[in-house]
């Protein structure tokens, strides 16, 4: 069965995503085209191809991916992917949690980080100048969404 087609967000829909990202992380603007596949997954495409040409390609050829998966709708919020965080890192000013070396290892290992942040929302994880993705902070922990393929298998690697 073919996966659902990509839907290009219109300016109003894109603005809604931007507004949420502004509120959550201080991100002002997403440069490029934002597309949605299925109910949740958002993709960021910065190639030079307009709406009509993208549709024309999709109508003629099986398209498997447009740009990169960068975020998903999560209830009333937006959860950034690890690549979404990296793509927008220069604009992220809010809800950044800077982890120490030990916790950042735990994080990249794919585990929850047991710290109190005083926040109950999605947060961007940082260690030194590395942006390490997005997690959900609750009372005493940060839940981890790092996909398996991007996890460390050896905690001794971060130095």
């Amino acid at each position: 069965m073919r996966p659902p087609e990509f839907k290009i967000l219109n300016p109003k829909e894109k603005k809604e995503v931007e507004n949420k990202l502004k509120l959550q992380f201080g991100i002002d603007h997403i440069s490029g085209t934002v597309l949605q596949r299925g109910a949740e997954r958002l993709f960021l495409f910065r190639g030079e191809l307009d709406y009509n040409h993208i549709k024309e390609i999709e109508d003629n050829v099986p398209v498997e991916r447009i740009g990169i998966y960068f975020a998903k709708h999560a209830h009333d919020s937006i959860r950034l992917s690890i690549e979404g965080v990296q793509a927008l890192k220069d604009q992220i000013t809010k809800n950044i949690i800077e982890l120490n070396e030990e916790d950042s290892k735990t994080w990249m290992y794919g585990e929850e980080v047991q710290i109190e942040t005083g926040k109950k929302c999605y947060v961007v994880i940082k260690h030194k100048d590395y942006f390490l993705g997005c997690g959900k902070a609750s009372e005493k922990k940060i839940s981890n969404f790092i996909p398996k393929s991007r996890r460390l298998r050896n905690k001794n690697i971060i130095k």
Partner: protein
Amino acid sequence: MRKEKKIPEPNPLFLERMQEIFNSEKDYKEYLEILKHKPSKSIRCNTLKVSPEKLKKKLESYGWKLVQPWEEYPEVMVIDCELEPGELGRSLEHLLGYYYIQELASMLPIIALKPKENDVILDLCAAPGSKTTQAAAEAKNTGLIIANELSMGRIKILASNLERCGVTNTIITKKEGAALSKRFKKQNLKFDKILVDAPCSGEGTLRSKYKTHGMWNIKTIMSLPRIQKSLFLESFKILKVGGEIIYSTCTHAPEENESVVSAILNELGDRIKIEKIKIPVTTRKGLTKWKNDEYNKGVELACRVYPQDNDTDGFFLSKFTKLK
């Protein structure tokens, strides 16, 4: 320092053909000797995310020794020390997409193609994505890249690599290459640059992938040129006039290399020009004669990359401009 490994016995017919290709006992002996060693491990810094200087400094802090072998391409680095198995792919920097593990010879087609900002590029046989990510980095994530691949399993790897490297200017399509070009021709979609890194018998990768020894088969070599030629000729139709196209393989077989290039030159006549290629490795001229066949003299401008000349895998490259 290279580790010697016990390698499978090469097919006698393969060896006979290689001896004939080299036509030099010295070359042949050096080739057989280097086949016993794995090539040095190499990486390409993903300049979309980090500068070569910063990456090198970070990786050196792990105790790794890195050499930048090509002055003009500081993003290319060779690992000049022993690492644990799999260590290169497990570092934080790799997981964050700061570098791509790529054999040196495999970097050459994009170096020859020279993508620039705002180019519209077609990578016809794109998986696993080493050359697509390299092209995206050269083009600074601008313009457009269509990365095509037929196999769904390989598309998943391609998508994962593009994502890890933060490549946002690319659309992945799934179609047989020649058929894709026909569709794009109908749509009047034209490209500034095209890479036809064609499916091949893979003789050049014997050092990296010992399993290639067991898969070597003369029937495969005889059956591939038809597909390779078709991939090139159909994609040439959607290249802009003045646009550039690379035909490359990772094999030494003249049937898949010079024979294809010669047929292309003969068929396209004054519509195409084969170009001299500038790449940072020692190369040999394309063969103008093989077995009973004489090829178009233009094939001399194609480049053969031999493992014993550069401590790389073997490769074949040719570059063309569309004149009309």
